[in-house]
């Protein structure tokens, strides 16, 4: 459609080229059994961006056709990201049976609360309409979605941090990468809702750059060896001694 700089092309293509490697690692290490939605999301992003790249460089494709394809892709991506967040919750809580029900309940209520907050913000502070109702609506939707996704990931981290849940490297990397992406999306969507889509740097380069960082985070955590936790078997003798000292102190008080 229009000529792009080398940096623009790099930021578009490089993360998705890396996602091909990511998908290969997921399959090779059989992690797709544990993270089927993440694999689906990765493959979908590769295919979507391949199609969009071809459309973008085909002169016969109009701006509207490209935008419609992009919006459809965005909607499907949003759905997959929600499914991915649900998958992350399940994987984190998998080894804590007592928290499964609580986690599900918390997730449902958090979604409800965040949806209500997002709707309230949309009513109270609608996106500025610079001539296109569709774009204004989509900007508002993007802001709401980013808010919900970022909120859910923050909740998961805070919940597991309070309860001291242990995370495996893979799921930690996936969740953190997605969190960084969602937080940035929220900031961008908030600015765009206020000032429109005009700034090319904000609309294109920042999201592409951040997405690149996220893919690198995912790749790093998939390639990094899982840390071997130290086992206490048996509970060390010196622990017994120190606890005995505590008991004596308690009795003498």
């Amino acid at each position: 459609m229009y000529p792009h700089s080398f940096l623009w092309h790099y930021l578009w293509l490089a993360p998705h080229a890396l996602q091909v490697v990511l998908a290969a690692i997921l399959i090779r290490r059989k992690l797709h059994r544990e993270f089927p939605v993440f694999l689906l999301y990765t493959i979908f992003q590769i295919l979507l961006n391949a199609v969009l790249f071809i459309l973008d460089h085909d002169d016969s494709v109009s701006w509207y056709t490209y935008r419609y394809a992009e919006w459809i892709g965005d909607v499907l991506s949003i759905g997959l990201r929600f499914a991915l967040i649900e998958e992350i919750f399940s994987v984190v809580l998998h080894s804590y049976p007592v928290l499964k029900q609580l986690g599900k309940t918390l997730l449902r209520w958090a979604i409800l609360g965040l949806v209500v907050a997002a709707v309230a913000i949309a009513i109270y502070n609608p996106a500025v309409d610079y001539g296109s109702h569709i774009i204004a609506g989509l900007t508002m939707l993007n802001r709401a979605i980013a808010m919900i996704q970022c909120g859910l990931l923050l909740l998961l981290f805070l919940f597991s941090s309070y309860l001291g849940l242990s995370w495996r490297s893979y799921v930690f990397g996936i969740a953190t990468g997605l969190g960084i992406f969602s937080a940035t999306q929220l900031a961008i969507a908030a600015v765009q809702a206020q000032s429109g889509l005009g700034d090319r740097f904000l609309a294109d380069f920042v999201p592409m750059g951040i997405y690149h960082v996220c893919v690198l985070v995912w790749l790093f955590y998939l390639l990094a060896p899982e840390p071997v936790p130290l086992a206490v078997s048996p509970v060390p003798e010196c622990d017994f001694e120190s606890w005995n000292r505590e008991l004596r102190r308690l009795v003498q008080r």
Partner: protein
Amino acid sequence: MITTFVLIAIAVLALAFFLGMLRGRASAVADASNLRGRTRSLDLVAFRNLVDPDEENYLRERLPRGEFRALQRERLRAALDYVQCVAANAAVLQRVGEAARRSEDPRVAATGQELVDTALDLRIYALLAQGKLYAGILIPGLRISPARIADSYEHLTRALSRLGRLQTPPHPYKIAATL
């Protein structure tokens, strides 16, 4: 405009939080041997006394209203300290359980899992109990019954005792007794 600024601030804080998690993860050490000396001793009987509704009723009937409210606040503050201490101990025991459930001995692993489950139960209940105790401090006449936390705590120490028995037979009761 204010909403936009608030959302941007939230997003920036969230981004800093996620990036901080990456850094924190890099320096985290899952070393269970660091846990020694991290638990604090507790007097379960005293805690039960502090949150005993009969004791509260007795004081309410015997003391002037103002004096009762002041005393009840003190009692609840003390109970709050206990609950915070219980939660901290549970966090330590949870890590012991996390390490134990990776044991190759299925009995040790099962007891480790039980320890983790009980510790998590206790921490959630401790969180709720803290909320109730804070409410009670604000409104001293409010009916609160966090005594169930004592039962959860006993369950936790029993689980740890079983774990100790499975791992090193001569010492189990000493661990549970000191918690």
